């Protein structure tokens, strides 16, 4: 997902006022020409409706995509973790190394269960609708979980992959993981207050919502490439 999506809400504001004022002036001019007030009324109604719909779409579309991406990634990682646990367990049994692998398997299973419990699916449509009808008030919760979840997920995934690495080395498979820099634990309330005070801080906030998960994906791709080469 491109970081340029941060411009989407800004474009929404510009589009709303541009369309509304454009329609009002156009409707007013048409009304004066025809000598009725219908032109202005039509311009006001059509302009407001078109402007607000486009603005809402531009505001909520990045959220919709971010929630959908979050759900998709969590689902994918759930399958990956399950697959790796089964693979390590199976190979250890085949080579008679179950006793040596108990710590790794127990830790991997514990992390997997914890992640399954915490990383629940959030419906993008439901949260977008809730945000629209409350004028963005419930969008504050969308911002909350989109800010907090990448860090929590990243920490768990890193711990899981370290156990996979240890298990693989006991199975005489050398996996060299690249440097995996943990995502920062961002302060939701600090970001909220800064956005409240400055307004424009929301641009940076939206930027990190996009790039944090992008960085996590890049780190994981490298790890998965290493894993694939050793399977």
């Amino acid at each position, binding site marked *: 997902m491109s970081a340029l999506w941060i411009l989407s809400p800004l474009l929404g504001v510009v589009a709303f006022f541009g369309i*509304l004022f454009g329609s*009002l002036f156009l409707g007013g001019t048409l009304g004066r020409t025809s000598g009725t007030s219908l032109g202005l009324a039509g311009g*006001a*109604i059509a302009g407001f*409706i078109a402007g*607000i719909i486009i603005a809402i779409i531009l505001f909520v579309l990045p959220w919709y995509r971010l929630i959908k991406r979050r759900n998709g990634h969590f689902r994918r990682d759930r399958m990956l973790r399950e697959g790796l646990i089964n693979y390590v367990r199976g190979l250890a049994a085949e080579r008679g190394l179950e006793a040596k692998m108990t710590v790794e398997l127990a830790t991997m299973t514990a992390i997997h269960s914890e992640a399954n419990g915490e990383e629940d699916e959030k419906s993008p449509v*439901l949260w977008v*609708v809730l945000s629209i*009808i409350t*004028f963005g008030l419930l969008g504050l919760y969308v911002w909350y979980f989109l800010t907090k979840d990448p860090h929590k997920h990243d920490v768990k995934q890193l711990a899981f992959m370290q156990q996979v690495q240890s298990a693989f080395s006991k199975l005489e498979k050398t996996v060299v993981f690249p440097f995996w820099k943990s995502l920062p634990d961002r302060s939701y309330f600090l970001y909220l207050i800064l956005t409240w005070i400055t307004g424009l801080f929301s641009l940076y906030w939206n930027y990190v919502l996009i790039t944090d998960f992008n960085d996590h994906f890049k780190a994981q791709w490298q790890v998965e490439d290493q894993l694939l080469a050793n399977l």
Partner: protein
Amino acid sequence: MASGGSATGEPVEPVAHPKRAHYLISLGMGATVGFVAAFGESFYAPLAFPVLIFSQALFSIVVAVAVAPLVEEPAKSLGLLLLKEEEKLTFEIADWTVLGALSGIGFGFMENVVYALGVLGYGVNVSLTLFLMRGLLTAPLHGITATLTGFGIGLWQKSGNARLLLIPLIAAMVIHGSFNLLASII
């Protein structure tokens, strides 16, 4: 829960038809979500302030025609969305349509109660007359538009394509907006 996952790990049985609780949830959510919609509308309305520069009379018409349908139509379907997205229930399209109709009727009923209570100071007769008049006009409107949205949710579930919800939802907004425009003009 009705659709429920099974504790024994058996495959989840899809619910063929909604149960009484689901009808009640739709009706109740439709009735109560009006307060949330009113809250949202109060924030959207100031966005129409630029209209005041050109005409004061137009302001209330723009709010009635544009803001009310925009907020109320998605709000009415909230109960259905919770059943579908949070409870993961699967129904037939016809069932979603009936649930949608119920949420609209609940919404219309509660809206009329609030309006009737608002004019209670003018006498019980006035309040009851308004309640009955609105019951004949706006309650069916809310029922019809929410039925459309319910149909859209059914289409979305059947096809797995959330965009299919948009078409009936926009149709519902257009009907609601047109009704409000006519009411404002008359």
